[in-house]
């Protein structure tokens, strides 16, 4: 079996099949009393010594200690070991440690395996030493079965293009681009608006320092515009991104501006233009011409024609701007164009949109002129804004005497809004209240209606106290309604002051809705461009919330700014620098190592059906179904989930280090267990295996029923595996993985769901009890759910009689053909007329290991 497996998959690298017989060493760890307290480690070690190919087995107090590791190295040398099993804790904890140990002793680190007899055994069966010891023996036997089949692997490296693509030219995108450019990398920044700057350019002042927003942003904008390493693509969109880590190709659409780079932004054209439209930058509070520059500090400082407002490209229609421009920079014949760039890394800084307050009917935003949003407020108090910085009521252009702020509009709301806190609105309002004080003194009354003031950052509480000291009244309660007093546009608020428990009715001349942030409306498009994931809130999901906060699940892609979640300018900038550093690490190294768990195609068996490519969440498999050429795996793009290997009906694609034969070896040994309530459990590495570990660490007790087989993703679990377990006589099988939206491999667990549902349907048809096969989504935090599931499944297992097991075996034998048999047939066919070889292969396949 080993020979066959090896010969076909590693052929191209010319690696010799492992002719040498396996020589396995098993090291059983006491872990002080952590394991030895409830498992008889000596008897486990003795048992291990009896297993085939095990040439050395023994126990130690602490295997991970220096003397423990020394012993492993010594034994490898002394007994010429070529395979090592350590039976101790979770591989999630110490696999890297022991891989290093065996590597130092000259072994290939991929020929090492762990049996988790602590988190998955001793800690969860504290009061059942006999059951725990039996289980530990099973786990060691399973690990030995797998290690015997493990192949040496070499990790490959791929080149990384030293150019980065930054999508989004807000403050986060600008910062990330500058950091990378200053490090010497080329950067392309794509911005959909005519100028970079983003939302920060529209804000008047920043909290908590009250700095002028555009004053601190504009230098950065112009630095980005002039930097020799930065290419700006404004008024542009990313159309597609293909490729993989280090080697992406992006197509960028440059929309026609109708003004060339010859523009000096003198403004003569706009003076000549007679067509008006609402000014987007001022949120419609003022107008602009059809030919315009978004704002004074715009980068690039270049005019643009809005064709929806312009009378037309035909010079006869109007053409006044063209006539006015002395530099002849107006080009009405300009067309959209697409450019293609190669980049090694991508930084997503696509920002956010502002919540649309018209969705809350009781506040009548958009209907009552003096109900405005915070963004409109920013423009009204900004010196560069439509009123030159005078706060006026839109209804009568006079300064209001009373202003109310309403917090949490569109935030912390399950209805007409978003459930999360938008993070910046409290501080923004406090800042705004102080701006009003600065401009108009104490005569202007300010009331802030809030649920909670979240002033959690550095210098925030100070600012809050300053606002209170300035006589701004903070009233705890969110207004139920706003009605307009008919004659004078005054706004009547009805609100429960929840501190006093009293309903107040108050009139104001202006109401500012402190609107929250929501995921950018084109986030879905960006998501599909880069196969990213989004949380239920709509923001992009990071690879790990604590330890990889700016890495996207797709390798080579990084996140920063509000695209990842609502945050203020400081946090956006911090995150942008972090993302730039992460991207810089990849590009600085110039190449990247890929863990040797990627998929490999057996070209002889591939029928070019394209199924593997279809289920691959990373588009890492190329197959031309028309030309019938075999599938090809782009190794650098493959993340190693194994979904393709589980899906292939012909065994033509497999996952290195998690081959069918290796996993089936584990299944066979697990089902050979004496446990009557056996729950053969498949768990994905990231969520469910970690969840089981968590149950162990938390000492959650359960019957010693589970025999856990770890795969990287539940998508690796094939129909064959499940049916093989049942055909071997397993009373119950549990398939577990990450919750559907949390898959570590984007959405590979959707395939798991499909397969299990298909199996249930078959069970119905065949007459096998459906509850014997369970599917449980267990996250890394759900130790209790793992405990509950195993306990329940163990009860079900006890109800399965020997007769039922025999019937199941017969049903499967009658109705199902395993992949191994199909492969044997296919090989026989390829081998031509040698029936002897075919029969031999078939016999091998049937015998498994």
């Amino acid at each position, binding site marked *: 079996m080993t020979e066959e497996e090896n010969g076909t998959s590693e052929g191209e690298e010319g690696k010799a099949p492992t002719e040498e017989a396996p020589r396995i060493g098993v090291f059983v760890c006491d872990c002080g009393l952590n394991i030895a307290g409830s498992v008889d480690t000596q008897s486990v070690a003795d048992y291990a010594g009896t297993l085939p190919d095990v040439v050395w087995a023994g126990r130690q107090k602490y295997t991970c200690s220096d003397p423990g590791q020394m012993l492993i190295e010594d034994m490898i040398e002394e007994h010429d070991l070529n395979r090592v099993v350590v039976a101790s804790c979770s591989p999630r904890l110490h696999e890297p440690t022991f891989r290093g140990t065996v590597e130092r002793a000259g072994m290939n680190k991929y020929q090492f395996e762990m049996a988790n007899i602590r988190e998955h055994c001793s800690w969860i069966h504290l009061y059942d030493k006999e059951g725990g010891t039996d289980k530990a023996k099973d786990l060691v036997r399973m690990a030995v079965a797998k290690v015997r089949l493990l192949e040496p692997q070499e990790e490959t490296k791929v080149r990384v293009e030293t150019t980065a693509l930054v999508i989004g030219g807000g403050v986060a995108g600008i910062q990330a681009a500058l950091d990378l450019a200053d490090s010497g990398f080329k950067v392309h920044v794509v911005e959909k608006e005519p100028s970079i700057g983003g939302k920060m350019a529209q804000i008047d002042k920043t909290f908590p320092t009250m700095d002028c927003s555009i004053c601190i942003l504009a230098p950065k904008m112009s630095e980005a515009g002039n930097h020799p390493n930065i290419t700006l693509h404004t008024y542009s969109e990313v159309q597609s991104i293909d490729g993989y880590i280090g080697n992406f190709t992006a197509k960028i659409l440059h929309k026609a501006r109708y003004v060339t780079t010859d523009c000096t932004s003198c403004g003569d054209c706009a003076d000549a233009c007679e067509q008006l439209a609402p000014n987007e930058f001022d949120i419609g509070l003022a107008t602009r011409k059809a030919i315009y520059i978004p704002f004074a500090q715009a980068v690039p400082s270049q005019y643009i024609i809005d064709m929806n407002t312009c009378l037309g490209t035909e010079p006869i229609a109007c053409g006044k701007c063209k006539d006015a421009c002395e530099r002849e920079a107006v080009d009405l014949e300009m067309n959209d164009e697409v450019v293609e760039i190669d980049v090694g890394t991508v930084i997503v800084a696509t920002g956010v949109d502002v919540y649309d307050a018209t969705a809350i009917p009781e506040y009548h935003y958009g209907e009552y002129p003096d109900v405005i949003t915070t963004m409109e407020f920013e423009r009204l108090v900004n010196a560069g804004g439509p009123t030159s910085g005078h706060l006026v009521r839109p209804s009568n252009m006079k300064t209001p005497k009373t202003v109310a702020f309403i917090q949490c509009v569109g935030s*912390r*709301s*399950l209805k007409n809004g978003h459930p999360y806190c938008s993070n910046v609105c409290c501080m923004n309002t406090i800042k705004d209240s102080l701006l009003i004080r600065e401009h108009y003194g104490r005569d202007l009354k300010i009331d802030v209606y809030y649920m909670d003031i979240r002033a959690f950052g550095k210098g925030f509480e100070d600012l809050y106290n300053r606002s209170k000291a300035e006589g701004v009244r903070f009233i705890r309660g969110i*207004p*139920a*309604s706003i009605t307009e007093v008919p004659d004078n546009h005054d706004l009547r608020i009805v609100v*429960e002051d929840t501190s006093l*428990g009293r309903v107040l009715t108050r009139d104001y001349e202006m109401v500012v809705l402190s609107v929250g942030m929501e995921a950018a409306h084109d986030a879905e498009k960006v998501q599909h461009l880069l196969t990213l994931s989004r949380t239920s809130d709509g923001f992009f999901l990071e690879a790990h919330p604590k330890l990889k906060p700016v890495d996207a699940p797709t390798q080579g892609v990084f996140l920063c700014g509000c695209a990842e979640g609502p945050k203020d300018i400081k946090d956006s900038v911090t995150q942008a620098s972090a993302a730039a550093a992460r991207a810089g690490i990849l590009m600085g190294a110039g190449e990247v190592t890929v863990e040797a768990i990627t998929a490999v195609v057996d070209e002889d068996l591939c029928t070019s059906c394209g199924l593997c490519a279809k289920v691959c969440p990373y588009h890492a498999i190329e197959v031309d179904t028309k030309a019938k050429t075999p599938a090809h795996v782009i190794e650098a793009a493959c993340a190693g989930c194994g979904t393709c290997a589980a899906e292939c009906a012909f065994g033509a694609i497999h996952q290195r280090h998690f081959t069918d034969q290796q996993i089936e070896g584990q299944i066979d040994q697990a089902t050979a267990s004496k446990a009557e309530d056996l729950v053969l459990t498949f768990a994905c590495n990231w969520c469910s295996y970690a969840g089981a570990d968590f149950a162990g660490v938390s000492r959650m007790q359960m019957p010693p029923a589970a025999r856990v087989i770890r795969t990287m993703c539940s998508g690796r679990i094939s129909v064959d595996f499940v049916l093989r377990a049942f055909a071997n006589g397993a009373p119950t099988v549990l398939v577990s993985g990450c919750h559907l939206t949390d898959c570590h491999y984007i959405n590979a667990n959707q395939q798991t769901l499909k397969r299990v549902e298909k199996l249930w349907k078959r069970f119905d048809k065949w007459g096998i009890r459906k509850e014997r096969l369970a599917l449980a989504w267990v996250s890394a935090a759900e130790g209790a759910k793992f405990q509950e599931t195993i306990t329940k499944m163990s009860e079900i297992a006890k109800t399965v009689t020997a007769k039922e097991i025999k019937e199941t075996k017969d049903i499967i034998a009658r109705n199902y053909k395993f992949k191994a048999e199909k492969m044997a047939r296919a090989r026989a066919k390829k081998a031509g007329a040698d029936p002897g070889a075919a029969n031999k292969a078939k016999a091998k396949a049937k015998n498994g290991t």
Partner: protein
Amino acid sequence: MTGNTRNDAGEAIAEDGGDFKPLIVAFTCNWCSYAGADFAGISRMQYPASIRVVRLMCSGRMHPGFILGALEMGADGVMVSGCHPGDCHYTFGNKSGQEAVETAIEMAEMAGLNGDRIHLQWVSASEGALFARTVDEFTRTINGLGPNPLGREPVDPSVVEMACSIHEDMTVAFEPSQAPEATREGLEVLREAFDSTHAYRCIECGKCTGICPVNARYPAFHPRKLVIKGMYGLDGELAYDHTIWACLECGLCREACRVDVDLPEFVRRLRSLARSEGQGEVGTHGGLIHTFDRLCSHSHNEPDLTSWSKEGRLRFDPRSDTVFVSGYAGALEQIIPDVEYDTKASPRDAVRILNMLGVRPVLFETERPSGHDLYYTGDNNAFGRLASMNAEALRATGAKRAVFVCPETMHTYRDLYPVVTGEPLGLECVHVIELVTEALAEEKVALRMLPNDQGLGAITYHDSCRMGRMLGLYDEPRQVIEETGDELVEMVHNRGYADCCGVGAWQRCDPASRQLRLARLVEAHEAGANRLVTPCSRCTFHFKCQQCHDGAEETPSTEDVEIIDLATYVAERLVKL
């Protein structure tokens, strides 16, 4: 008094009653009848030991609710006696006593009880013999009728409470610190209420209370504090908090709540809790409407609520795939005779509309009251009985589609029955106005102004709580009104944020709810409307009541607003094309 030979079900029965010992509640006035009974005693006149006398100062104190309430609690008969006409100690109080008895008889018969179980006899202070003879004969009548069919079913404990308290004042009936702890069952109810209404999500923003039309007029009722008390585990205070009975269940707070707490349902469950702790409160009009519904909720009774269908040449077809659910409560006219409103008009006009649209519906002969009011006042037992009987009877008609005119009824059948009975209703539910808009779109019918509509001025549409917030029918009625060419103006509070008419399941009619009703009429007037159309007969009824009781002196303006029922409005103006 004639010897009776049939029971409530109309079966022949013996007069001696066998082992049956009847229980009769007798209401007597202080001056004549009670004295007459005394006289019978002094004179050692013998009569059966079947009566329990309740003394009133005047028979004018009688309320139909007392009579029906006594029957519901298991009395086999109710006797009322007072001074002879013309002899009343209070000039003509006994006249209203007589009206109360007549109403009670009519309603009892509608609910399926034999009216002979209620008897009125004038007895003067000197007529001891007459008193004795009346008791004797009435006892024999009751013997003939047999035991009260309702006596066999357990009576909701809050009904007992009901007979002795009529809520009038606005104060909280207890000191919070004195509130006893709730029982174990009560705690269970509270926990369930929290889970099912998501009350635990409350983030204390106060929008519910800010928008509550009751709180604005009666601050002691404080929706947010009720939830907070639940959170803090002050279950005893909640069970004994009588402010919960002020809630109108209008659903505005649910509309405003940002975290989707079902506050009306929370309050409804608190009412169940209060009932289980013996803290129920009697509804308006002596609780008559609730009592009537409860009487109809007993399977022994076979109510007949089809009287509206007898007039107006309506066409029905028992084989139709459409059944019409009238929601006719029957009792309204009996209760407030001084309000000029024919409650039969609404179902009748709805069927007229259906006929005009070419639909001859099945007449739902076995219809019982929907139980809407019992549900919202927390009487789960009686509502459960009505729900399963009505749902089953509706399915038994064989129709595929149920058409409604009463929004409360439609909401109850469509949204509540499936939840309470645990099975789908099995029929499609539509409001008659939806059928009208469909027919308009297909240009089968049109709406034309009546000749005398000219110059009547603008119309405003009042979204009733059930029609709007619960059924979501906002556009259809407006579309129909505008179709006639009438000018439609909107009140300040409209659609999802429309204020309530102030009637919440007939639980309270207090200064707060009356102010609310008045405010709504003022709003209509300020909107420039001379006519107000509403889809709900309860709204119509109460707006009219408001106008004839308060309107005249205080706010002359509101009197000018004519209140029109939506079905009537449409039926009068619909023409076939």
